[in-house]
């Protein structure tokens, strides 16, 4: 799962320190993605080294604040609107990405869902094409067929889920509900937010 891109995406909303970033990502993904604070700090170091963000000094509590650079903004925008390869493992990343994307003002979530649907449909097509060429009566092919079918049904499930999401997004927009979130007041250092 891309901690790196998620940090950049949240920083497009304003300056944050490391602990605050962890809170923001957690709350924006419905509490379903908990990142080790050590991983946040090491990722921030790498991002700074790569010129995607810069530190802007410390606050009164000695916490370093970061802001995204123009190239960091571009990377965040690209990540938020690009499909990811289909696989059961990847689907969780997609769910986190979508959850985060709906909270970022101006993010084109429809574009992401659409790109993902096309990508998944292509995967399904490629899997089916391979299955087409397999001799169903050859017992040596059976293990492969079982796995191929799992992937095929996973692709189908993902497509149905994406179609459902499209409907949910459209209904939400029609009701005028806006899930966009500005940055929250950071909680006190070292104390994790409790789930309500």
């Amino acid at each position, binding site marked *: 799962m891309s901690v790196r891109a998620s940090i950049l995406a949240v920083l497009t909303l304003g300056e944050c320190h490391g602990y605050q970033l962890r809170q923001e990502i957690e709350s924006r993904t419905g509490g379903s993605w908990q990142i080790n604070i050590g991983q946040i700090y090491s990722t921030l170091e790498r991002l700074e080294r790569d010129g995607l963000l810069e530190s802007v000094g410390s606050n009164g509590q000695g916490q370093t604040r970061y802001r995204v650079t123009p190239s960091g903004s571009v990377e965040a925008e690209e990540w938020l609107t690009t499909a990811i390869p289909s696989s059961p493992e990847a689907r969780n990343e997609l769910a986190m990405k979508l959850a985060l994307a709906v909270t970022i003002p101006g993010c084109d979530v429809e574009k992401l869902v659409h790109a993902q649907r096309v990508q998944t*449909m292509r995967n399904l097509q490629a899997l089916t094409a391979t299955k087409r060429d397999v001799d169903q009566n050859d017992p040596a092919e059976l293990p492969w067929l079982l796995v191929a079918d799992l992937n095929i049904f996973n692709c189908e499930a993902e497509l149905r889920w994406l179609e459902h999401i499209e409907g949910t997004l459209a209904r939400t927009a029609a009701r005028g509900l806006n899930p966009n979130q500005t940055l929250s007041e950071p909680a006190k250092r070292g104390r994790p937010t409790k789930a309500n």
Partner: protein
Amino acid sequence: MSKVLLELIDVQKTYGTGENEVHALRGASLQVKAGELVAIMGASGSGKSTLLTIAGGLEVPTTGDVRIIDNSLPTLKPAQLATLRRQTIGYVFQDFNLIPSLTVIENVALPLELDGVKVRKARKAALDALESMDIGELADRFPDEISGGQRQRVAIARSFVGPRQVLLADEPTGALDSKTSEAVIRALRKRIDAGIAGVLVTHDAKLAAWADRILVIRDGQIVEEISNTITPEQFGA
């Protein structure tokens, strides 16, 4: 390069007039070659079934052209169109449309016999078609004596019996379970591979994935074409 057997050129279809005017198709174009299967996907009311009925000459486009093997359908006289439909185009529907009082082989041979082909010759062609669907042994049964999947395979055999070159299917596996659906689409695909042009309308992604190209239709327009351009290795299948 395979020959284009079916072509829709900027087809528009409007129902009703004035306030009740509905634009079912707003300029759809499509080419299907011999040996090619094209799937049409879209939500209910997107125009996908209208596109299929126009492709098959069951409805006339408001504007635009439909060409099947060098014939422009809108310019044909009704009798010519009926002949072309019977001899060239096969349809497969969700609900099979088999005649219950006729045996399987009689159902399959019927379109040929209506066309004046001698009974013995028509039955021979029907048996060939059934055997290519691996259901030759069902020839003398009645539709209510066989399963849903077998009935649909009979319907597919009927759709391409004789010299037909264009196969149009509207949700052909809609009433079937997953395993039977796969047997049916596999049989249909085999027939297409033998040199027929096919159009498959479906909302089922697993089924559409058997096509060479998938066209997505929305509000009467083809908005997307998805082709099989990546290999399974690229995503770790």
